[in-house]
């Protein structure tokens, strides 16, 4: 067989694989729009009767499963975490790489070392620290500790290291203060790295499962993933309903993915390239 036939076969296989990978998401969407009887007897992939009743029921829940509340908790917490991580990490990386504070290199080494410690190790002590601060069951428990993550400051440090020192020298000659330099030079130059960091931080925070599971107590303070996961426990055979909650929970992420697909995939690609 010649090469072009092989190429065609390979292309067909890979397109089939890609379709199979996203097929579960289509099944989820289609099934969430079926009446319950059809969900349990899925002869047809496409609903015979289209209905939004599952969605109406979810959005109507108030006490036992306040879906709207979980959604706004998630939006608020993920946005606050993203903002906090960017501000703290950018300022820290600026101090280490551009202002070259003494001990900055060693501090960065310590940060990278701490990233090797598995997340489970932090659960128990963080719980106790947050309880001393009276932050348990409040958004602060999920927002403030997240600003200490090492990924952001490490990534922005790498980026700032590659910027030529002449930039600062010129700014200093022009009489810029470090704060002006940071705001008017470094931040704009770091915009591509910061937007990648923002996308990853937002997704990571939105998808965080263990944190809200352990640190949040009242149902109305849950984030979306934990809310729908615990809700699923009690209604787990009502697939129409649980799948509809899932559709609503992934929609914001799919929008982000559609907008930043190139950035997300190429950052993923680059993660294996370091020596």
């Amino acid at each position, binding site marked *: 067989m010649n090469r072009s036939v092989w190429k065609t076969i390979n*292309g067909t*296989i*890979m*397109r089939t694989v*890609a379709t199979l*990978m996203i097929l*579960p*998401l289509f099944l*989820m969407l289609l099934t969430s729009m079926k009446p319950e009887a059809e969900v*349990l*007897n*899925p002869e047809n992939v496409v609903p015979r009767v289209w209905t939004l009743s599952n969605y109406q029921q979810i959005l109507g829940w108030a006490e036992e499963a306040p879906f709207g509340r979980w959604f706004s908790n998630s939006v608020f917490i993920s946005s606050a975490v993203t903002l906090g991580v960017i*501000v*703290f990490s950018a*300022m*820290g990386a600026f*101090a280490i790489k551009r*202002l070259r*504070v003494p001990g900055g290199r060693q*501090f960065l080494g310590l940060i990278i070392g*701490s990233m*090797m*410690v*598995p997340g*489970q*190790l*932090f*659960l*128990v*002590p*963080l*719980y*106790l*620290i947050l309880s001393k601060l009276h932050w348990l069951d409040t958004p602060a428990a999920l927002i*403030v500790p997240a*600003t*200490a993550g090492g990924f952001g*400051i490490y990534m922005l440090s790498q980026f700032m290291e590659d910027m030529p020192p002449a930039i600062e020298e010129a700014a200093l000659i022009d009489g810029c203060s*470090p704060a002006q330099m*940071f705001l008017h030079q470094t931040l704009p130059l770091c915009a591509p790295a910061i937007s990648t960091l923002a996308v990853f931080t937002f997704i990571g925070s939105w*998808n965080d*499962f263990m944190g809200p599971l*352990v640190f949040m107590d009242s149902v109305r303070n849950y984030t979306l993933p*934990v809310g729908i*996961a615990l809700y*699923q426990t009690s209604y*787990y*055979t009502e*697939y129409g309903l*649980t*799948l509809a*909650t899932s559709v609503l929970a*992934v929609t914001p992420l799919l929008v982000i993915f559609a907008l930043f697909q190139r950035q*997300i995939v190429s950052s*993923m*690609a*680059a*993660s*294996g390239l370091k*020596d």
Partner: protein
Amino acid sequence: MQRTGFLFLAPYAVSFAIFVILPIVVSFVLSFMRFDLTAQSSAGFVGLDNYKEALHDNYFWSAVKATLLFAAMIVPGLLVIGLSMALGINAMARGRAAVRALVFLPGMLNIAVTGILWQWFFNGEFGLFNFALKHFGSQGQPWLSDKAFAMPSIVLMSVWWTVGGTAIILLTALQQIPGMYFEAAALDGASTMRMFRHITLPLLKPVMSFVVVTTSIAGFQMFGQAFMLTRGGPELSTRGVAQYIYETAFNSYRMGYGAAMSWLLFALISVFGIFQIRMMRRPA
């Protein structure tokens, strides 16, 4: 200038000290303490008792076993399927970017959604898989309620969830291999299989070891997948160390014991990490 530098570093440094360094120290100290939230009066130092208890705790060893079993299935699974996908995408004439994005898409979902979706696929009575199997005259499988099927089912879901990332990392490495190596080999009459064995695989080795190390570390921390699909059952056969730590600390409120086990998990991860890096570095 230097003082300004410290001012810029201060917010991150304070947060890092309180929420990274302090927890590590607290966790270490706690691991030598009896610290039960249910009976605070009994808090006190007990030396190595927590660690000794773990080594004699059958639940701990069954959790270690489940963790190792999961890692032993997911790591080769991701490597083999991820590499096959990467080779397939790399050989495509058109449409690479689209396929690359689509295979990565499941990785964007959180574990709650992923779990709800696969719970629906796997359910023995009402699940989609068994509905399809029964349609073709088969009996259907007890995917999540049978000890033999539960862990492979969790692995299957996890492969779907994360293999796109692995494939993209390997694909990028494949694209870095200079085309002239293959051209030269083709001139010498080497077969595709020989080129794969003697050019592609050796040059991919560093990236493959990166994949093995990162996926093992993630695998050793498996929690959400089993929590969503089986809650650790049947008969605790899928309860990993992370879930046992979670239950010890937050269901039984034994903080000291939970902390000690999290250090043991860290030790397990470190040992495997170092071991794997050594293995991979040895020249073939």
